[in-house]
């Protein structure tokens, strides 16, 4: 176990606390958009996918990396697009859309 591992562990542990702290008071109307938003954020795996694909030396690695990049791109693009669509409904308070937000979000939750 080198110092490097310890360094990553430190980042990991601190991130756990930040992750918990940062969403501790989210209203249930926003549960689904929050889930969708964090879904988009773990799409950052695309960075990892690009790296393994770019450093691939064998055909097998290349093929796996290729699929990893496709899947990760889907995750990022889809995740953000879906979140944005959900949040569009919170943008203003147009009278009839508002109710829809609450109804649909509740439907999703319960």
């Amino acid at each position, binding site marked *: 176990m080198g110092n490097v591992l310890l360094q990553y562990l430190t980042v990991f542990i601190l*991130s756990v606390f930040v992750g918990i702290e940062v969403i501790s008071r989210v209203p249930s109307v926003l549960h689904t958009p929050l889930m969708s938003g964090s879904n988009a954020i773990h*799409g950052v*795996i695309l960075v990892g996918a690009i790296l393994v694909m770019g450093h691939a030396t*064998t055909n097998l690695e290349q093929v796996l990396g290729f699929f990893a990049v*496709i899947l990760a791109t889907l995750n990022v693009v889809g995740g953000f697009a879906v979140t944005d669509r959900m949040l569009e409904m919170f943008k203003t308070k147009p009278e009839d859309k508002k*109710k829809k937000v609450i109804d649909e979000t509740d439907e999703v939750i319960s």
Partner: protein
Amino acid sequence: MTRGTAIDLCYLVAAITFILALKGLSSPKRARAGTFVAMAGMFLAIFVTFFQPGLHHQLWIYIAMAIGVVIGLPAARLVKMTAMPQLVAIFNGVGGGAAALVSITTFIGSNPKQEATYKVLEVLIGVFIGTVSFSGSAIAFIKLQELITGRPITYPGQQIVNALLALAAIALIVAVLVTASTTLLWILLVVSFVIGIGVVLPIGGADVPVLISLLNSLTGLAVAASGFTLGNNVLIVAGTLVGASGLLLTQMMCKSIGRSLPNILFSAFGSNITAGGGAEGGETRTVRQSTPEDVGVLLSYARKVAIIPGYGLAVAQAQHTVRELADELEAKGVEVFYAIHPVAGRMPGHMNVLLAEANVPYEQLKEMDDANPELPTCDVALVVGANDTVNPSAKTTPGSPIFGMPIINADEAQHIVFLKRSMRPGFAGVDNDLLFDEKTVLLFGDAKDTLSKLVSAVNAS
């Protein structure tokens, strides 16, 4: 500054944007801005990755990304809003799959026999969790899309089979740690895939959103594991953020439907519908408890709110605070009126007097007969310390002591919020079915106290 340092700095900026985004997503006002910030951070992180030294096959990377965009964007933009949960499920699943592939590719590309044990363990965790999330999300998608039944799918000995699979996975992880065998790693991948399916099959459609939240959290952890393997901080931070906040979110979702996570995962709820919906035994039924923040948002985004005051309002001397809340809501463009039951409180006109004292505009006060036709059009009925006067058993249960009493039809509103001191029945000593209705949430506590919390919650949202 070397190129590596510059790239790492950009990753740091991206990590910060992700934290800000999660923070923003916790409030309706800043949610959208938060998402844009995260998008910018994500773009930065991906963009600078192309400047990493020694990156080959760039053309193929572009092609793969183009394929992802061409499939993902239309899917996300064109699918109906009602199908959103399954879209989140599938986009989550592919993320898990990507994390598993990243981990496995790193393993193949390295010389596993020479790697430190902890390195191999990171790979194994990434492969295991990522694959479970992938197949689990796929099944969740199939269920929500109603390609298979949304009901729990069970078979005899299901728990045992799942337990055995879990044991097999653990054994395989240990075996790979010892032997560094690539073949065994592939077998682990298959077993993990089956576990994901096995765990999700017995979960009922209504609980799937909670499950997706859990799988989302798992994908985050898989991404973090890949981050360890690749020695990449932005993956560790982002993955862990999602993993930790996702777990908490899952907990919150469980709470808001009044169930525990193990109960959701292992009880095949809904295969035999007994709890929750039945009319028998008041004690076994669950109520949905909420928080002032939740209700504050619910109220702020309503069109029309009916406030139904009762004795609890009088006891708590909360008439001024309730007016404050009404004013706050009106300022946000919400239509507010008070539905006054003739016997609300302990004397006729009790409520009118109290509210008049607080200078509530007269035209906002509606007597029962005027209020009832309005209630079906209300988004929220806010019941402040009333109970019997909104108890639907007065209409529905001939044996009830209060049967035949005219009530305010709070049950016809879209959502019902009860501010109550306790679960004790009202003056008449009759259980109130409305408390257990699925449209109902409860806020326990002193009415005045709760109302002032609501005022600040409405203010903030």
